[in-house]
């Protein structure tokens, strides 16, 4: 009896094995590798669940999603050099043109054409960050501009109003400082020695990267650095913080200019701080930066068609709607809604400039080192701007 049972079990197992093998041979699945950096466990889990949804609706494609920890750029450089990159991966807008010129990114134009992918739904400034000439090298998965975040208690106690332009910003800062609502060592405003924070002020004054030595740019830098020199603002390191978001959380600053990434950070690290998100200040015009990341396809990918199917689904209306469901990011498509409370970020979509410029890594280093020198008085504004112009020319 026992022997019969054993034979039956073996036979059943063999039958299952044959069925599974036949089924696999029949559908012929393709595996697509997907990689990005981690912006927190919440985001990793969300992407994994979206990938699972994709696999259910696309039975022929299996997605192998992995998070690259540590130095993403260096890790990807090694993968590119070994001709073994992931098929689909994140590309920061600041790196897009460099990687495109290095020949590691696949131009997507032919895939867009053959699959009739509608590119008109993306905000043009965001798509522009991944376009070189007429070639599109990726579609933005999400984005964020800067907004103005203010500690509500400090603003209220100082009887100051939410500033809309530079003069009002200075006035609000002066009121906050005079009211004595700041703890010791704190400043009304936190400003980083970083072009990624200062450049919006240049745009607000009508300046541009193409003509960075213009009087409008000089005036904007003078305003930005002037806030620090006059004691109304300070850099985060002088406020005992790694970045301005931390300074807001530690109540070392009342007004900061950060992006959507601040919201989950504050909720998890400083849930007790009452702050409001307001539109970025403006001056002659609205000016802001769009920090955006794309899904791009590797030139060396061996499964380009399947990879394109994944890429176009993730950045399509359905994929992006799922991606926005937790409010971790802002939609890069006009036909996808952001979850509540993001209005003051989204209004910047019209005028925000994609973050990045030619010869990015080298120029950015020179520009930020110069800016820190301007703040401490080691360089003049004019010197920094002419250095920047030269560095962007390469």
């Amino acid at each position, binding site marked *: 009896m026992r022997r019969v049972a054993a034979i039956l079990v073996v036979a059943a197992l063999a039958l299952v094995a044959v069925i599974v093998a036949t089924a696999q041979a029949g559908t012929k699945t393709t595996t697509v590798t997907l990689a990005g950096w981690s912006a927190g466990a919440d985001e990793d889990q969300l992407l994994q669940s979206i990938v699972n949804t994709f696999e259910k609706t696309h039975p022929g494609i299996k997605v192998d999603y992995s998070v690259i920890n540590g*130095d993403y*750029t*260096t890790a990807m*450089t090694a993968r*590119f*050099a070994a*001709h073994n990159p992931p098929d689909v991966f994140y590309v920061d807008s600041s790196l897009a043109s*460099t*990687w495109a010129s*290095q*020949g*590691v990114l696949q131009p997507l134009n032919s895939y867009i054409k053959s699959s009739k992918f509608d590119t008109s739904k993306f905000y043009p400034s965001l798509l522009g960050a991944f376009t070189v000439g007429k070639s599109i090298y990726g579609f933005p998965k999400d984005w964020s501009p800067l907004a103005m975040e203010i500690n509500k208690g400090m603003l209220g106690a100082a009887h100051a109003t939410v500033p809309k332009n530079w003069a009002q910003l200075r006035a609000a800062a002066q009121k906050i400082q005079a009211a004595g609502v700041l703890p010791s*060592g704190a400043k009304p405003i936190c400003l980083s*020695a970083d072009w990624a924070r200062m450049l919006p002020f240049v745009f607000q004054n009508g300046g541009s990267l193409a003509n960075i030595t213009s009087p409008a740019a000089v005036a904007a830098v003078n305003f930005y650095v002037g806030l620090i020199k006059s004691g109304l603002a300070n850099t985060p*390191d*002088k*406020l*005992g913080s790694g970045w301005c978001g931390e300074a807001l959380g530690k109540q070392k600053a009342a007004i900061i200019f950060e992006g959507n990434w601040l919201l989950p950070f504050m909720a998890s690290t400083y849930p007790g701080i009452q702050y409001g998100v307001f539109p970025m200040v403006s001056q002659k015009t609205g000016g802001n930066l769009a920090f955006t990341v794309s899904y791009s396809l590797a030139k060396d990918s061996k499964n380009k068609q399947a990879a394109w199917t994944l890429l176009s689904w993730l950045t399509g209306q359905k994929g992006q709607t799922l991606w926005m469901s937790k409010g971790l990011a802002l939609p890069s498509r006009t036909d996808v809604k952001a979850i509540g409370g993001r209005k003051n970020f989204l209004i910047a979509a019209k005028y925000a400039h994609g973050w990045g410029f030619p*010869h990015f*890594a*080298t120029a950015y*280093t*020179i520009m*930020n*080192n*110069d800016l*820190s*020198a301007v703040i*401490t008085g*080691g*360089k003049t504004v004019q010197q920094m701007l002419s250095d920047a112009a030269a560095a962007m020319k390469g």
Partner: protein
Amino acid sequence: MAAAATPVPPRNSLFGARLREAGWGYAFVAVPMAVFGLFFIYPFGYALYISFFHWGILGKQPGTGSIGFHNYHQVINDHVFRTAIKNTLEYTAGVLPLEMAMGLLMALVVNQSIRGQKFWRAAFYFPSLASSVAITTIALYLAASDGLINRVFGTTTPWFTTASTATWAIVVLNAWTTSGTVMLFYLAALQSIPTDVYEAASVDNTSTWRTFWRITFPLLRPAHFFVLVVFGIGALKVFDQQYLASGGTGGPNYSTYTAVLYIYREAFQAFDFGMAAAAGTVIFIGIFVLTVVQRLTVGRGEAA
């Protein structure tokens, strides 16, 4: 079979044995030489080769051939590179005497028969064992504007992120972490000094101070030379602390931009591997020349 049975003339046998011995010698040397060749000579030659090209992530940039000394010209005329070299030399000039002095002092202390000698030896060596990244990260917290150090002294300077103090903060930090290893080398050298010279000195009633400067210090010359060369090269290659303190930017105001950080940024941020290789070669030549100079001065008569 016949050959094996034939007796071999003695002269030939000796020669054969020598040859066999030499063969074994070469066989033993071949393994480390192969590793050395594969992981040092080959990459070194390859780096030299790519320094003459526009070399990107995927190799030679399409449509470009050899560009001669263009990369070298660019590197040498780059003001960021010059600043990086200046910072590195400044750092080395600061850290080397400090770590040698601290290492020697600690070696002299633990070379005495004091209570808890083993404890002090371990305690002094301990910082050298800890990860430099962990130590630097903790130091950044301690030296932040509202960190422990500033609270104790009532100041508010973020020591690692202020242009005028960043290099010196790293000098102090690294002198502390590396002096334990310097101590080990000095300790070994101190213990190899013959005791009869000290006996002679004590017969002559020589003061401790004089004994140190006239006997111990000069007799430590092989150790001075060794430490100077090894730790000098180490200091010229400094990277981790500056990378961590500046978030990889070399700021503020280029104050933490070191030679190796320049190579790293050219390669992995700007993806210009040709420039990075050229910078690496220039730095190699610099270190090589400095080492030869050290050997001709401090290392006179030393077979190190």
